[in-house]
């Protein structure tokens, strides 16, 4: 984009070109407008239910008394546990592939596998979790089972974004570290990882955002229609924001549709806060790195 495109410097002449350009722009703008419209619509619907009460109450058979507290708490438990498992493993795998693996056969196998794993529909992870964690390992329909399945689901995302972050660290820095007598692991831990941290964190938050919005695998392996209490540990039954929304949206009474809309607003705000945190963290780390 640095050198001027000959076509771009030419004055926009033909009507046809203008038309096509407008059409293409419409293709970008229209879906975005639709999304904005949807969000405005949902927020409008939700406005009569959105209150502190909604956030701090339990689900109820009376739509105007229902709240989403167990969903919020469940979602936070779930992403905390998912992150605890997926981040170290994912970053570890990324380090292996970028720093140790090279062109080895094992690295190649992992590589091919990752590309395929990223394309597996999320519901399949639900089936895996149901059979492996819920049944075979006897965890039951617990937070732990849900978090493990979710960790496997987001693992490819964590690995891929961490790899990209690691790749941005200049090779010369590694060589400098080695030349100063550090072992490979010392270089990774003290030079490469801190440098790659903003990218890794951004990827981690992307993964967590994915986990927080995902409902399908959790429905398969742990859906309970009514949870009127808060989870108190990894062995506890649970519900999460999207599952609670799903329950409400599939009820026909208009009151519950309003609850669903309010739940969606809570979910979207949570995602917004997370993205904000990602941007802030990234910014802070970058300043730290420069400073």
């Amino acid at each position, binding site marked *: 984009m640095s050198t001027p495109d000959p076509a771009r410097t030419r004055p926009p002449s033909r009507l046809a070109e203008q038309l096509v350009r407008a059409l293409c722009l419409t293709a970008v703008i229209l879906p975005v407008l639709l999304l904005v419209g949807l969000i405005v619509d949902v927020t409008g619907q939700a406005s009569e239910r959105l209150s502190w009460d909604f956030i701090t109450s*339990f*689900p*109820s*058979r009376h739509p105007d008394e229902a709240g989403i507290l167990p969903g919020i708490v469940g979602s936070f438990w779930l992403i905390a*546990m998912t992150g*605890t*498992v997926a*981040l*170290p493993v994912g970053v570890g795998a990324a380090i292996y592939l970028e720093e140790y693996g090279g062109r080895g056969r094992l690295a190649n196998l992992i590589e091919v596998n990752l590309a395929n794993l990223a394309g597996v529909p999320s519901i399949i992870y639900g089936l895996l979790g149901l059979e492996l964690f819920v049944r075979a*390992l006897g*965890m*039951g329909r*617990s937070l*732990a*089972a849900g*978090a*493990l399945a979710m960790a496997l689901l987001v693992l490819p995302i964590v690995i891929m974004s961490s790899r990209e972050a690691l790749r941005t660290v200049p090779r010369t820095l590694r060589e400098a570290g080695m030349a100063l007598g550090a072992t490979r692991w010392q270089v990774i*831990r*003290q030079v490469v*990882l*801190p440098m790659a941290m903003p990218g890794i964190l951004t990827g981690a938050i992307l993964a967590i955002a994915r986990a927080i919005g995902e409902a399908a695998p959790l429905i398969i392996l742990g*859906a*309970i*229609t*009514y*949870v*009127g*209490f808060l989870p*108190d*540990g*990894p*062995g*506890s*039954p649970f519900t999460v924001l999207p599952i609670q929304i799903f329950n409400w949206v*599939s*009820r*026909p*009474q208009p009151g519950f549709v309003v609850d669903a809309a309010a739940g969606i607003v809570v979910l979207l705000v949570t995602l917004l806060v997370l993205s904000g945190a990602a941007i802030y963290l990234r910014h802070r780390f970058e300043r730290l790195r420069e400073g």
Partner: protein
Amino acid sequence: MRRALATFCLGVSLGSLGACGPGTTDIVAVDGSSTVYPITEAVAEEFQKGGRGRVTIGVSGTGGGFKKLCKGEVALSGASRPIRPSEVELCKEARIDYIELPVAYDGIAVVVHPDNAWVDHLSVEELRRMWEPAAQDRIKRWSDVREGWPDTELHLFGPGVDSGTYDYFTKAIVGQEHSSRGDFTSSEDDNVLVQGVSTDRGALGFFGFAYYSENADKLRVVPVDGGAGPILPSLQTVADGSYQPLSRPIFIYVSRKEAERGEVAAFVDFYLDSSAELVAEVGYVPLPDPAYALVRRRFAAKTTGSVFGGEGSKVGASVEQTLANG
């Protein structure tokens, strides 16, 4: 960095520890029929408001609920029909005794889209013609059901096949449990059905009377002629038994062993004490007071076994009589 890694490791080990440790023990796990669900949900909500314990409710259908009860996975299960011989066997094999407690009457409502002006009533015979297995490739339009009805596509909605409502409907209408056509929208979640019928002009569906009364503004209920002329389902016609053949008692089955647990006993006691009020609130028909007294006595005495069941769905049974005889 080292601290971060250490935190990760600690977290992982804690996470796996938690995963392997025992589950939370003070939970009253409930499962079963979607028909009984609204009652159980209301009871659980009130129960937990008092901070008396924690209840989870799943909706696996009556059959699914019995399977879980007989595996010892839940403390009690809602059932919209009495236990079947095969399920009695299942529990016997697993050495799980159960206490059978009727909690309310329910009627099955047959509903159509509110704009459907042609259906004045349906006879049991017409319902059978729509729903029997042989109907699958023959009855596709309303005009196939009764002459003079419009040539509109017929879209059928019914509860999931694990539900007691489906069992009871097929028994009462087709004559054999679990026997129906397969090409209808079938969901364990009655809400899906209400939504389906209320947005589809060619639809006909059936589900518990409670769901109909909660959504009466979106649906039109069809009077059913069981031989004595068309009768609309209502609190009254269900309780006095005149809405036949589509009304019946519904139950909870409590595991005898689980009933020893304080929180389970407390929940069931609360259930029976608040049923008269909550059952009506969620749209079912409460049992007469003397019947509730009999039911409470049954639970207090921990009387196991079934007096209603053994043969699956029964058509037209009075709770008081059966309990008194049992």
